[in-house]
């Protein structure tokens, strides 16, 4: 059964035709999604009926706050098939912190000068800068899996690249190209080379079913605000043995078992990695978001987006031919997402987005936090339209029509 995006939009106040300031055609979910009333209500209900600090309170509202917070953890863990959701899901403030956590704990303990971390040319800065910092600080070597001419990663030289690597850190899906990375051969090559694998799932988890029990990676991160959840919450998953062996990251309350004037011992998982008051309402909001997505079904979300991406790519090419250059793979339900980056008619992406904005169409223009990839593509910036479950063909049509105005203005 396919998705009725118009009905779904009714759940999203910002997407209402009655929005103060006028209706918007929101095509920027790869930057941040909108959120349904159910997510806002879950947070509001928490704040207005049972907010208290978690894990330490004896009284009833503190117990209930703790229960909701930990229930959200289990719900989020199950959503991605975490084998041990109650212990392996660590809440962070965003996926950027999740990746940095691995860099500061596992990597700073394990990696020595000359050790190799293999990334790819399509990485978001969140999965590059932490490793560049380690390169500067520790002298580790960064290698890049190159981008192929088909806008997929070129894995032909993978075994040579991974040789000597201690960690392979790659996007599970690109936030620029719409490329969905085939993790299987990467995990297999890493295993052969004795390297661990970290996957940045920020652009995968919102859009497709993920099963961490079978995907074969060792570390996995994603972020709440791109999957209908609130800002201020992200997730790190890692195998329990790894989390157990890792030193703590931030020090403070909650992450300790005991503190003396001359030392401390750490708490059990996952709290060992959650220093200070956690993003309680935000975790509860994310729990409501995965419940909402589960009720619709990620398989359906995926099908909807795949069909819509194909429609969009066809319409853009039909309408604009050589005037548009699309940076991304051909339509393909399995290996391509609803993220569509392009350059248009010699007009700078900022100007494209500005003109579209006057029609209420929200697209992103810039380097999308992937400057090395921009250099690969030979551009400074692209325009990016990205699709989610609440978009439909009308939204795509609005984009196509809007581009005509862009062309006319700058011709």
């Amino acid at each position, binding site marked *: 059964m396919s998705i009725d995006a118009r009905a779904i939009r009714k759940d999203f106040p910002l997407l209402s035709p009655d929005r103060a300031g006028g209706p918007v055609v929101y095509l920027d979910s790869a930057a941040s999604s909108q959120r349904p009333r159910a997510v806002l209500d879950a947070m509001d209900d928490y704040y207005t009926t049972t907010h208290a600090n978690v*894990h*330490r*309170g*004896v009284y*009833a509202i*503190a*117990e209930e706050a*703790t*229960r909701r917070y*930990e*229930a959200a*953890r*289990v719900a989020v863990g199950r959503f991605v098939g975490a084998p041990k*959701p*109650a*212990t392996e899901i660590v809440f962070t403030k965003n996926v950027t912190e999740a990746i940095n956590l691995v860099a500061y704990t596992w990597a700073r303990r394990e990696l020595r000068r000359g050790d190799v971390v293999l990334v790819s040319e399509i990485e978001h800065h969140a999965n590059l800068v932490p490793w560049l910092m380690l390169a500067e600080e520790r002298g580790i070597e960064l290698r890049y899996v190159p981008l192929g001419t088909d806008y997929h990663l070129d894995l032909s030289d993978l075994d040579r690249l991974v040789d000597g690597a201690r960690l392979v850190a790659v996007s599970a899906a690109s936030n620029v190209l719409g490329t969905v990375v085939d993790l299987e051969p990467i995990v297999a090559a890493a295993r052969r080379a004795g390297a661990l694998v970290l996957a940045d799932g920020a652009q995968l988890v919102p859009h497709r079913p993920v099963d961490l029990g079978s995907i074969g990676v060792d570390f996995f991160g994603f972020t709440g605000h791109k999957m209908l959840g609130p800002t201020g919450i992200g997730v790190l998953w890692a195998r329990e043995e790894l989390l157990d062996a890792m030193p703590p990251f931030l020090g403070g309350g909650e992450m*300790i*078992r*005991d503190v003396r004037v001359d030392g401390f011992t750490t*708490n*059990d*998982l996952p*709290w060992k990695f959650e220093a200070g008051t956690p993003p309680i309402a935000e975790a509860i909001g994310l729990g409501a978001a995965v419940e909402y997505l589960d009720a619709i079904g990620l398989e359906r979300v995926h099908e909807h987006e795949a069909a819509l991406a194909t429609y969009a790519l066809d319409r853009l090419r039909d309408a604009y031919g050589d005037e548009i250059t699309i940076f991304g793979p051909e339509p393909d339900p399995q290996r391509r997402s609803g993220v569509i980056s392009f350059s248009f008619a010699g007009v700078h992406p900022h100007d494209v987005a500005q003109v579209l904005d006057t029609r209420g169409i929200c697209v992103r223009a810039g380097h999308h936090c992937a400057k090395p990839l921009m250099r690969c593509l030979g551009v400074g910036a692209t325009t990016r339209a990205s699709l989610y479950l609440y978009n439909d063909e009308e939204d795509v049509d609005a984009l196509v029509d809007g581009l005509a105005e862009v062309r006319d203005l700058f011709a």
Partner: protein
Amino acid sequence: MSGLEDLYREIILDHYRSPRNRGELPAPPAHRVEGFNPLCGDEIVVFLDVVDGVVVDLKISGQGCSISQSSASMMSAAVKGRSVEEARGLVRSFKAMMSIHEAQLGAEDGDDGPGAATPVIAPDDLGELAALQGVVKFPVRIKCATLSWNTLVQGLDELEAARA
């Protein structure tokens, strides 16, 4: 919120006021093991004297609330004189009784969690310990009730590891 009488049964208050097996054992020969409840600061020390697979003596020191202290006291009475096997069975039964809410709280106890092993002793046969059943209605206090039991298991594990 249910009433306090479920939590503070008379027998619990009795063990709290007059704890059994309170004190220390010279260690060694006894084995000394500490447990913390990181949530509230309770600390418990269990002294174990295991000879030929039997817990011949056991003492408890440390500080804690009525629930953790009475649970430790009842545990000491129940375990003393039993074989290590029986003691472990008792732990499983007790934790099974406590497990419903602990699972909801996201038990960090791994293999000791619900379903890991069939309880050897049915809750009905736990004797006095059944008085602690009311604790499950107060999820935060489950950690108090299980502290001494987890500490006991840790001690038994350490002894086993040392022997191996």
